[in-house]
């Protein structure tokens, strides 16, 4: 049997319609955008205004920013407050990678568990749809939504840099590192989060417990983020590319597992 994109789009379209009528599913993802943007607003704009001192003047990040210039090419040629702001924008951008994870998790668990709870899987499986098409359809809408949300957040991030940063900071923020992070690693991370959520959802009875398990996906990114903040490491473009390759391999493994979980008989007889 050939893979039918019209069937995938038909189901994905239905999922999108359901999503629009389910604000509870979208809310955590939108909240994560604000949570990811808040630290940069706090450190770049709010704190300097409250304490009446520039970041350069406080001297807190001067050494770290200068050291990071060797790893992050976008920092080259910048000095003073612009260097520190750009450094911080790059450091805190990693937090934005949580947006595709949270969005994918929130939406995928609803997409799969919603079908289980409404007992809609059996009539769905009684159509000519193949299980691979079902897996593709169940990941397509959450993937596109989380990608759209992540890219929107990235654009807002650059706009914040343009509005609140020193002149030229936004150009240094919107450099190759950000493009690798949101154009390559972001989608791969979203896909991994989706596949994990879908696999976990097949065994979970409600979206919350599925999200708790697939939420473990946040840990590696949080660990890298904290290590950056502590000055233990600087994630440059090379590290991001390596991370993307690792994530690609992880997706291959997850897809292999996902295809096995999405077997007609398994869904009908073992999914609870």
């Amino acid at each position, binding site marked *: *049997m050939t893979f039918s994109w019209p*069937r995938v789009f038909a189901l994905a379209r239905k999922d999108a319609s359901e999503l629009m009528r389910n604000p509870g599913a979208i809310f955590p993802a939108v909240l994560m955008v604000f949570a990811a943007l808040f630290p940069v607003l706090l450190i770049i704009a709010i704190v300097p205004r409250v304490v009446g001192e520039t970041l350069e003047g406080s001297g807190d990040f001067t050494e770290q920013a200068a050291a990071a210039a060797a790893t992050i090419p976008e920092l080259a040629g910048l000095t003073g407050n612009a260097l520190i702001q750009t450094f911080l924008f790059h450091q805190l951008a990693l937090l934005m990678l949580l947006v595709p994870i949270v969005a994918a998790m929130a939406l995928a668990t609803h997409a799969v568990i919603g079908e289980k709870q*409404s007992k809609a*899987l059996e009539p769905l499986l*009684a159509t000519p749809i193949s299980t691979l098409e079902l897996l593709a359809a169940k990941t397509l809408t959450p993937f596109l939504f989380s990608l759209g949300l992540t890219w929107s957040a990235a654009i807002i991030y650059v706009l914040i840099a343009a509005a609140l940063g020193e002149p030229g900071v936004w150009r240094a923020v919107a450099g190759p590192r950000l493009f690798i992070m949101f154009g390559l690693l972001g989608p791969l991370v979203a896909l991994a989060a989706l596949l994990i959520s879908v696999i976990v959802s097949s065994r979970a009875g409600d979206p919350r417990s599925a999200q708790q398990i697939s939420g473990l996906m946040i840990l590696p990114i949080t660990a890298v983020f904290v290590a950056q903040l502590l000055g233990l490491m600087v994630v440059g473009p090379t590290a991001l590319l390596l991370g993307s390759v690792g994530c690609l391999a992880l997706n291959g493994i997850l897809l292999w597992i996902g295809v096995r979980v999405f077997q007609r008989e398994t869904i009908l007889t073992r999914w609870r």
Partner: protein
Amino acid sequence: MLISEHLTRVFDQRVAVRDVSLSVNRGEIVTLLGPNGAGKTTTMRMLAGLILPTAGRISIDGVELSTATAAQARGNVGLLTEAPGLWERLSVRINLLTYARLQGVVDPAASVDEALRHVELFDRASEIAGKLSKGLKQRVAIARALIHKPRILLLDEPTSGLDPASARHIRDLILGLRSEGRAILVSTHNLGEAEELSDRIAVLKTDLLAFDTPATLRKAQAGSRVVIELEGGERREFAIDDVADIPSIVSRLVGEGARIMRVTPDQRSLEDVYLDLVGAER
């Protein structure tokens, strides 16, 4: 039209269905009766091409069911699942449109209209599925099963949990579908419904215990009799194949000089036959 031969399904060493052979012809309703866990849903799922049998063969509208033909077979069958399984946040129309697209029908919108007219819900198309009554949801689910105009319908407990009026409506709908020449297999626990709808009845308890017309099932279980009370209180019982046998018995007794006070045909109900077959305690 729908044929199963020696159908067996084993799950992790547990035999769910064993050696079941049955058929449903065009314009015929066959009812599947059996206690909970008898394998009715497993049989339905196999016949719908959802799961493959461990052994045996299934022919759906002339197509032998296999891994390669299962998708095609599913496109030839309309399955009403035990729960309506509607997308409750979406309108009736979007529910059906999605299925029309999944079934690959040429004009999804027209098919939805036709299916909705079939179940007399055309004017409720824009309503949110979750807000419909249980009976109406079941009718939407039947419309969904009809969306691709299948010639074979598998209906798993179509009136389960419905109020009498809704159940009546669904039964009338099923009879109407039969008159259109569809082959219909209905699974139910409602023996009255089985008697009303069925051209043939299959009794299942892992094995197929019986498969015949309701009248033949009663006869085959050798239960039909007539009780004749004679003057003076004497009671005599005669085994009969049919109520048509009674006049000749009465004539013979009268010929022998008996004075007959009362003649009571004592045909066994389908319930008696069913309970004897499945070996249930009364």
